[in-house]
């Protein structure tokens, strides 16, 4: 063998020894790796910040590596995002735990899914964050009722909730803001409120289902997750109730027109509890010019009634969710902290966010009634009014008003239930007046409606639909606040009665009601249940199904939430009072219980909008029947159609 050949053999053997001996060589560098630990899977509205920063963990041989550079890189074009430095790339050092956390990533204006990578020197692979920029539809919601989450001495508290939620075309909740307030121990932090981080809207083909809101406030709902029962009336408007066992309530969810701003004249009412934790209701008119609020307010504060106090304040510019503040408002010497959510420039939800009092309600534009109102602004109307959940004496009333503008008088027929004292189909008469700014009053002088006698009355824009603010028909109406001692907390509305034909009361209706009761079978202390549903009226009968929130155990000995509860009742027209009907009984069947009968009185404003109350010895309620507007469904845009169909598939 030659010397060269021997050398070659030695080199090969040495190389083999090196190759086969890697694992046992103590001088070999341990493996560096990087993994995504936080922020992947997020969805953000286009041109908005992601809720959570991105975080990646670097380890070397399995041990966290501090003080190394991690580079986050988003796509350079298309759907992407920018870090705080305004670019798609950011380099961050790892901390003592080996974690590198990015700055806030803000989505660009392009909708779509993409990945952000995180790399570190020495690692053979990168960490990946899957993200999505989404366009969404914004809805405003508000409701009020009784909660169980902050009970004092095992008793419920009043609460109010208002917010805005952005939902993408697949039914995913992208983001949102809200304010929750029981005026006792649970109030969303101010001025920012709660953030809605994610959630899901899931409804069936009938528009019935749930809206889950995952918030950053662990004190609310179930560990921060609120579930609302939902019944769409149409693509833009739904009846809602909290539906997670933490509370029961009634309210509305409505498509928002954003951006919008408040301007001009408004009529308003809102209701809740005062700083003594007694029922209170406010009503009045105000105008906004250059962000300055001036107006008049009536207050029924635990039976102490004050009228036409000056109302002054300042409106802040709304944020991208249509949320803003009305600051500097002082009523009866008490400074109120008010937030608002825009549905549209002429429909605003207002919530009191003080931590010692609470209230919620609405303001509606007045249009021509801001300066040119008069007694003629109230036409023949159907009215309804109900206490809030903390009223001294629960009551609900509904009826028909037939005004005579020239004399400032009215006649009518109405029903009222005051905790088992019932006036059915009672003749009412009285006086009313409306000033040029839409501020007015109405008094029932014949004592026909028990203790219900005196209202503040505030005229709205005749082009508005007070039940469904996105609907262009409706004819406006007036807002009402009860000014009777003992009936504090009551607010309501009157809308034009344009059709009393019995044959118009047919077809598909979304319905709901807020029910107060005395006979809690469970022995639990609480006095409210709520329901929403969808039914069909045909041949003088209602049949449908609904969601019943019986958190306080009216129907059975335990607290329950009932889905797909059957509703059924025969409708009898009151021939002496066109537009009035009775439904005796309306049977509601929950779980395996026998049907529970309720005595309903129904007042028809038009075929598509009716008010109903129940007048029983152990329960009373006020609610509405609103018709699915077929014409709107056909005409809704493709994106909305897709959303409905997607949700329907998801629920099946």
């Amino acid at each position: 063998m030659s010397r060269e050949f021997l050398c070659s053999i030695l080199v090969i053997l040495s190389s083999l020894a090196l190759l086969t001996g890697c694992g046992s060589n103590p001088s070999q560098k341990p493996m560096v790796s990087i993994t995504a630990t936080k922020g992947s899977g997020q969805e953000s509205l286009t041109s908005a910040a992601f809720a959570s920063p991105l975080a990646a963990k670097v380890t070397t041989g399995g041990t966290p590596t501090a003080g190394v550079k991690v580079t986050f890189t988003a796509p350079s074009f298309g759907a992407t995002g920018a870090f705080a430095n305004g670019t798609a790339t950011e380099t961050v050092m790892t901390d003592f735990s080996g974690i590198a956390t990015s700055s806030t990533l803000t989505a660009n204006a392009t909708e779509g899914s993409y990945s952000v990578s995180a790399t570190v020197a020495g690692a053979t692979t990168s960490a990946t964050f899957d993200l999505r920029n989404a366009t969404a539809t914004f809805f405003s919601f508000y409701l009020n009722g009784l909660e169980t989450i902050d009970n004092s001495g095992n008793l419920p508290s009043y609460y109010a909730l208002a917010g805005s939620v952005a939902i993408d075309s697949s039914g995913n909740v992208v983001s949102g803001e809200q304010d929750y307030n029981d005026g006792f121990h649970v109030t969303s932090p101010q001025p920012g409120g709660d953030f809605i981080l994610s959630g899901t809207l899931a409804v069936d083909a009938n528009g019935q289902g749930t809206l889950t809101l995952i918030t950053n406030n662990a004190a609310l709902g179930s560990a921060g997750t609120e579930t609302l029962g939902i019944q769409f009336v149409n693509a833009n408007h739904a009846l809602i109730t909290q539906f997670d066992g933490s509370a029961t309530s009634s309210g509305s969810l409505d498509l928002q027109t954003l951006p919008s701003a408040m301007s001009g004249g408004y009529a308003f009412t809102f209701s809740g509890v005062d700083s003594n934790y007694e029922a209170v209701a406010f009503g009045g008119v105000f105008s906004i010019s250059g962000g300055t609020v001036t107006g008049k307010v009536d207050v029924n504060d635990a039976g102490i009634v004050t009228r036409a106090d000056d109302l002054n304040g300042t409106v802040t510019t709304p944020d991208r969710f249509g949320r803003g503040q009305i600051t500097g408002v002082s009523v009866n010497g008490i400074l109120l902290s008010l937030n608002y959510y825009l549905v549209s420039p002429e429909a605003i939800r207002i919530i009191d966010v003080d931590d010692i009092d609470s209230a919620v309600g609405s303001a509606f534009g007045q249009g021509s009634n801001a300066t040119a109102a008069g007694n003629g602004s109230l036409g023949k109307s159907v009215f309804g009014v109900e206490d809030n959940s903390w009223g001294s004496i629960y009551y609900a009333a509904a009826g028909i008003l037939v005004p005579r503008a020239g004399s400032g008088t009215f006649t009518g027929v109405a029903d009222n239930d005051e905790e088992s004292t019932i006036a059915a189909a009672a003749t009412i008469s009285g006086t009313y007046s409306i000033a040029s700014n839409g501020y007015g009053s109405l008094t029932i002088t014949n004592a026909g409606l028990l203790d219900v006698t005196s209202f503040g009355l505030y005229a709205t824009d005749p082009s508005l639909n007070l039940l469904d603010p996105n609907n262009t028909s409706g004819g406006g109406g007036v807002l009402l606040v009860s000014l009777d001692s003992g009936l504090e907390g009551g607010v309501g509305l009157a809308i034009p009665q344009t059709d009393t034909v019995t044959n118009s009361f047919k077809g598909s209706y979304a319905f709901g009601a807020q029910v107060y009761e005395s006979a809690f079978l469970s022995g639990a202390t609480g006095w409210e249940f709520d329901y929403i549903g969808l039914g069909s009226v045909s041949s003088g009968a209602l049949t449908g199904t609904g969601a019943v929130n019986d958190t306080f155990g009216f129907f059975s000995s335990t607290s329950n939430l009932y889905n797909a509860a059957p509703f059924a009742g025969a409708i009898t027209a009151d021939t002496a009072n066109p537009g009035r009907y009775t439904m005796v009984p309306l049977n509601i069947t929950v779980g395996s219980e026998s049907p529970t009968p309720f005595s309903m009185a129904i007042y028809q404003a038009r075929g598509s909008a009716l008010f109903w109350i129940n007048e029983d010895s152990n329960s009373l309620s006020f609610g509405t029947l609103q018709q699915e507007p077929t014409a709107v469904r056909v005409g809704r845009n493709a994106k909305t159609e897709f959303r409905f169909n997607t949700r329907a598939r998801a629920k099946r």
Partner: protein
Amino acid sequence: MGCNRFVRTVRVIARLMTGLWLAVPLMAQTAVESRPYYDVTNEIAFSGTVSGVLTTAPPGMTWGSHLLVATIAGTIDASLGRWGLVGNEALSRINGKQVDVLGVMKRIDGRQVLLVRSVKVDGKIYVIRNTRGVPLSPQARERAVRKGEPL
């Protein structure tokens, strides 16, 4: 809060008897209540023995809890409202006890009902409603204590 009212038992029982006597003809009339809903100037005070405690109202009776108080003028239906028997510092184990009651008689749905403002039992006064007749919730009691205000 007017503890001296309780010593005027004989006089108010006479007024109470008058009220019950008037109740019969009033039933045929329209139920019109004067404003305000709870008129403190019409308050009466009387003594009696609790003969019954209703934690929830039977059909036709004003909602909330009730005491049935036996007096020399007959049994009085005394409405305690929603919170009279629940929550911290609420009335308890009161059946069969001697009580002094302050309130306003109201005709509600054809029945004479006493809206109770306070009950004195075993030397302790339990405030049920404020001077405007608003039932005091546990939250309202706590708020009053925090403000240092009388109930």
